[in-house]
């Protein structure tokens, strides 16, 4: 992998964001109580020092290779391509990573930052438990105590992941405040962090939260997009024509898209979770069905009512079930650099089954949303069009949800 730190000349580049206060245009920033501000500034300082330190990246890439299994393959999905009868479809196989999803990329990066800061203890929030498991995994690797905040309802729904986290040595704290879901787990993690500033690092699970988290998580996840550039040049001798990825908070999509933002010929599609449909009140599509607001330390788009109260997100996929979205996505949406579309629960479920049968890969329900859009898009495109989808997680964790939806019983 290319470990070069200093990027090309980034003046007038979409990749030069955020500004020094963490703004992506109108979005991002640091909307936190003064109680949290000194911590955030400390994280920013440590992260920027790490970013400029070749040794930091050497350690990151060595572990990315030998522990995570990077680079993940770029796979030409021939059966899918034939079946859809249009664009040539590739998958970025981040579901093959250790722990089965892309989340481990930013967990590894952030725990190395925590180590540099001399913080011996890690906390995290989790929805479905994927980020919690990845966090508990790197904490086991570095022998650091780990506390994961998880909505009480999610603890009930995601028992296998709760068990995994406990096996890995993490303490899982069920959050009953508010509505007891992911956003409340994040509130609780932030509260806990404020009260334990001296020894604790908050390892955020997506490209959201106050600056510098959206930037930092993006830069760790960009390893995917950078690999795709190199792999595609090797395989096809040119860049892809379009990229497709699902979006909850937006970490896997940002990681794939960011290295291509300045390549104006590369089209990008971010796929939000449409739940029962974005015209209903049960979805998780913050861009297509939300409004600009402020939560969790950032200005972005959020699901909210007329009084500015944050409303609940819904998706069949627990990993997309967040009522907001990372601020860089909000900006890229407004300037129309990325096309943000949505896919319903039912379409994702159909795509899940289709991908499993066509390729022998059981995808997570999150990238099943991306695949549902590939199923719509690819047939409309010419055969020489190259499309890359981020297959950001494997589906083992979702078999119970899918079985229930399909009316089947698992003993």
């Amino acid at each position: 992998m290319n470990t070069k730190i200093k990027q090309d000349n980034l003046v007038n580049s979409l990749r030069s964001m955020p500004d020094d206060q963490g703004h992506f245009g109108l979005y991002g920033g640091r909307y936190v109580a003064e109680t949290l501000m000194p911590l955030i500034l400390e994280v920013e300082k440590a992260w920027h020092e790490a970013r400029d330190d070749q040794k930091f990246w050497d350690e990151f890439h060595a572990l990315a290779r030998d522990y995570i299994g990077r680079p993940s393959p770029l796979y030409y999905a021939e059966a899918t391509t034939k079946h859809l009868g249009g664009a040539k479809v590739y998958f970025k196989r981040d579901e093959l990573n250790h722990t089965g999803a892309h989340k481990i990329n930013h967990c590894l990066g952030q725990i190395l930052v925590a180590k540099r800061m001399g913080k011996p203890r890690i906390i995290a929030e989790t929805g479905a438990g994927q980020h919690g498991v990845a966090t508990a995994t790197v904490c086991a690797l570095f022998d650091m105590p780990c506390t994961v905040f998880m909505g009480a309802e999610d603890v009930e729904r995601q028992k296998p992941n709760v068990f995994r986290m406990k096996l890995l040595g993490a303490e899982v704290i069920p959050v009953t405040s508010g509505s007891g879901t992911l956003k409340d787990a994040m509130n609780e993690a932030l509260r806990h962090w404020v009260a334990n500033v001296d020894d604790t690092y908050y390892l955020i699970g997506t490209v959201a939260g106050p600056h510098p988290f959206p930037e930092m998580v993006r830069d760790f996840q960009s390893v995917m997009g950078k690999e795709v550039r190199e792999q595609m040049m090797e395989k096809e001798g040119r860049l892809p024509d379009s990229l497709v990825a699902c979006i909850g908070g937006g970490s896997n999509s940002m990681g794939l898209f960011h290295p291509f933002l300045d390549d104006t010929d590369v089209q990008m599609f971010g796929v939000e979770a449409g739940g029962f449909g974005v015209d209903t009140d049960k979805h998780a599509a913050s861009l297509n069905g939300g409004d600009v607001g402020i939560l969790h330390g950032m200005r972005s788009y959020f699901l909210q009512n007329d009084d500015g109260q944050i409303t609940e997100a819904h998706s069949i996929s627990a990993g997309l079930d967040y009522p907001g979205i990372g601020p860089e996505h909000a900006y890229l949406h407004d300037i129309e650099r990325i096309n943000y579309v949505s896919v319903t629960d039912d379409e994702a479920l159909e795509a899940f089954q289709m991908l499993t049968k066509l390729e022998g890969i059981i995808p997570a329900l999150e990238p099943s949303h991306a695949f549902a859009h590939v199923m719509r898009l690819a047939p409309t495109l010419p055969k020489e069009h190259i499309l890359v989808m981020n297959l950001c997680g494997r589906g083992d964790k979702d078999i119970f949800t899918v079985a229930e939806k399909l009316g089947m019983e698992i003993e």
Partner: protein
Amino acid sequence: MSRIKIKFEQLNKEGRKGLVTFVTAGDPSLQQSRDVLMALPNSGADFIEVGMPFSDPMADGPAIQASSLRALEGGMNLTKTLELVRELRAAHDKTPIILMGYYNPIYRYGCEKFIESVSECGVDGLIIVDLPPEEDYEIRPMAVEAGIDIIRLMTPTTVGTRLDTVLDGASGFLYYVSITGVTGTKSANIDEISKHIDVIKSKTDLPVAVGFGIKTPEDVSAMSKIADAVIVGSAIVQNMAEHKNDTEMKALIENQVKALAQAL
């Protein structure tokens, strides 16, 4: 001169410290919060802090989180909160009223419209918990124009250049968060806070009010020795919640506030 300034000058003359009491608008019900708010000035509260309910009160502990949710479940919203403040102002002309809450409901309401409305309702100051100095450019200039104080939070970790940043543009008084944590949790270390307040006072003439973790008359007594005012929130909110079905609730809160005021 603003009501906040007049009140602090008056306290100064009387050689007394101030009591700031916090109640969430609409908690446990609109009528009950109205009854309690109306009774606070005559029970010894020098400043009234009214919480604007929010679904995700990130900087608050369990007591105020629960109060926010109860209010919202009872149908409270920003428009009704402002209506409640208007009634309070009509009944109590001199008592400074401070609105405390989070930025999103204000942003959604519209910053300009919000400042117009609060100004017209007789609000004296705003504490917007998740709006640090770096991000308050959309609302502070209008607030200043309307003569409404933007009250800034500071914490035991607000030191060095950060202290200067927070003091730049602060008005009314400073809200000193006495613990590293959320509202209503553990107790504070008085010696450390006292030293820090001395540093702050060497840089500003603004009065300093101390809050977070102050529950009993004993806490109030200790804190009032080192601060210009003492803020009690969670303990009152908690007491209201525990007695929400009790017809004597208002009287209980009046007695609680009287006891707190006597401890100053």
